[in-house]
């Protein structure tokens, strides 16, 4: 195991009666891209500001490179924060914005102009923008200037607070790639905060899911996505069909040792699940892309449904399914061309394989 670059221990931050961050501990390994993800108000930005040194935790400690920096002001920490608002200095040109952190660095390179130009190239900005003010830049350009301004400070740890949230969809995808490339090229450690699951999944080496000031789960994107530890994590990760279930040992017979039979009250049917973690009751999570729709009745984990609506997602199609005579809904995403296509109103069978679903606690 590689040494942790940053360690947060027992961080708590209280406001009045509430706690924005409630006794959380985590570490960030050098060179990794770690993402704190959670809904608004979950404490992720507060955590980031504590790491940056812009907020002092009520309790707990921050170590960077093994040194306790909890009481150190932001300017003394080897970290740099890219703000959600970007916080570019509006009265300065792009060049002056980048020169500011350079002037404050004790180990700044001799040729500052050269280093500014090099950084602009790294983030993919044209040198002709050097003398523009932030108000004369597009959203994406501002974004890149903000990244460059933080990177040129040469931080060991780059902190990013939802830097893509103010940008339109098309550009966001492009900048996401830029971020990932920058992480690779710069070799720096990134601690990223977002409420967007998609961003977290596509960028991170490791994801930390937070809610109500606590860490719910930590793991690789794959782990978090396919093995959520709770209903909240599963639903937050999106596209989940959720049904309450209870284990049924007597009567029903499982197909193999690994699967167990559960009774899904809402669905009024039995389901076979492989991943249940010995839970006796909880919630069955089936991802939309794990659900398949067909005309033939499958043997297990299947129910008759009606196609309520059909959404073309480009490469795939999302069906919203409704169980006739009930208000039970399912969502299902299938690749185009892999299966037959259906139209609203058709009666079909929805099914998912046993290895697909997961049973999780509340």
């Amino acid at each position, binding site marked *: 195991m590689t040494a942790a670059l940053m360690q947060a221990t027992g961080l708590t931050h209280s406001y009045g009666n509430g706690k924005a961050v409630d006794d959380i501990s985590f570490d960030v390994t050098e060179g990794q891209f770690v993402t704190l993800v959670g809904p608004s108000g979950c404490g992720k930005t507060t955590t980031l500001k504590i790491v*940056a*040194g*812009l907020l002092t935790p009520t309790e707990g400690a921050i170590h960077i490179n093994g040194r306790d920096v909890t009481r150190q*002001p*932001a*300017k003394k920490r080897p*970290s*740099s*924060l890219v*703000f*959600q*608002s970007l*916080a570019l*200095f*509006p*009265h300065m040109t792009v060049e002056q914005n980048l020169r*500011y*952190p350079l*002037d*404050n*660095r004790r180990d700044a390179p001799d040729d500052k102009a050269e280093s500014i130009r090099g950084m602009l190239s790294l983030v993919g900005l044209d040198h002709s923008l050097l003398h523009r003010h932030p108000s004369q830049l597009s959203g994406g350009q501002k974004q890149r200037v903000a990244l460059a*301004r*933080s990177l040129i*400070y040469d931080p060991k740890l780059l902190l990013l607070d939802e830097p893509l949230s103010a940008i339109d969809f098309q550009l966001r995808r492009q900048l996401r790639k830029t971020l990932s490339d920058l992480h690779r090229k710069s070799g720096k450690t990134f601690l990223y905060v977002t409420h967007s699951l998609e961003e977290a999944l596509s960028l991170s080496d490791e994801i930390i899911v937070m809610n109500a000031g606590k860490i719910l789960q930590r793991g690789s994107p794959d782990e978090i996505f396919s093995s959520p530890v709770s209903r909240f994590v599963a639903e937050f990760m999106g596209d989940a069909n959720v049904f309450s279930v209870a284990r049924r040992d007597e009567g029903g017979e499982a197909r193999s040792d690994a699967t167990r039979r559960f009774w899904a009250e809402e669905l009024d049917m039995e389901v076979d699940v492989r991943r249940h973690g010995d839970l006796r009751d909880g919630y069955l999570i089936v991802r939309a892309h794990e659900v398949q729709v067909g005309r033939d009745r499958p043997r297990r984990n299947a129910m008759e449904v009606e196609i309520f609506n059909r959404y073309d997602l480009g490469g795939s199609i999302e069906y919203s399914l409704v169980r006739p005579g009930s208000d039970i809904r399912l969502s299902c995403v299938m690749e185009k061309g892999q299966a037959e296509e259906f139209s609203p109103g058709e009666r079909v069978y929805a099914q998912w394989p046993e290895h697909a679903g997961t049973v999780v606690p509340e």
Partner: protein
Amino acid sequence: MNEHTTMPRMTVDEKSLSGWLDEFMSSWRSRYLLVLPVGLLLVVFFFFPLMIIFLYSFSASDEVSQLSFTLHNYISVLSSPAKLSMYLHSVVYSSATVAICLAIAFPLGNFIAKHLSKLAQAFVIALLVAPLFMSMLIRILGWRLFMLKFGVLNELLSYFGLPRIEGLTYMGPMAIFGMVYLYFPFVLFPIYVAISNISDEILDAARDLGGNTWTIARRITLPLAAPGVAIGSAFAFALSFGNPVSSEVLVGNNVQLVGNMEKFSFGYAQNWVQGSAESTIMMIFLLIVLIPVLKRAEIDRLLHGEGN
């Protein structure tokens, strides 16, 4: 219009009235009509008096019926070394006032805007506004009583066994103290507003990127608060330039400033045409000095804030 016609109970008269109003409000003529009251007010109470002073300054007599044209008033001001030295004194005293006000108002404004809670901010601002409700004459008189030979200050000093400071109220430069006291709020408020408008994230970013207090003040806060600094300076400079109260009451005319000269011409000397020329010279000088300052201030930047 549609919603009006579908209202069944509306009478024909009401409908035509609202239609007429709509039409009136949207026609270009009405816009000028709406500005008319304010325009009249400005002309009658602001522009008109200025014009009278301007006309008087070129006249030999202050009888309105006997206005004439002469440059004599101007020549007599500009050829008098004593009067020119009063202008010079005013420039020096007002500049010193602005400099001292800025030196205190910038750090104080920064402290109030960025280090106090909203409630504490309101309290401090109210505290600073309160004296403005009292006549400046009375307030300056208060300071004179404080500084007199047997005034509050000296009684306190002697109570603690310290030597008395005499002659404070006879020292010309002490007038600057009074001017700073009188005009400090006019410098502080615009600077406070300008600094309040700087977003906290900008200042956080400045700290996070290694800036110390001095660097941030010099490279971030001061340039971003420039409109407030410019407006505050302009206020203090212009207001203190023509005001005789501090030099007259606090230091008993031991320094003669432009305000004292004008007051003398209009009052004791009853030479209105002379006073008008003196005032016109002052106004032209102030315009020349302040227009470039205010032009750079970009008042809308102060009002709308920048850096978000």
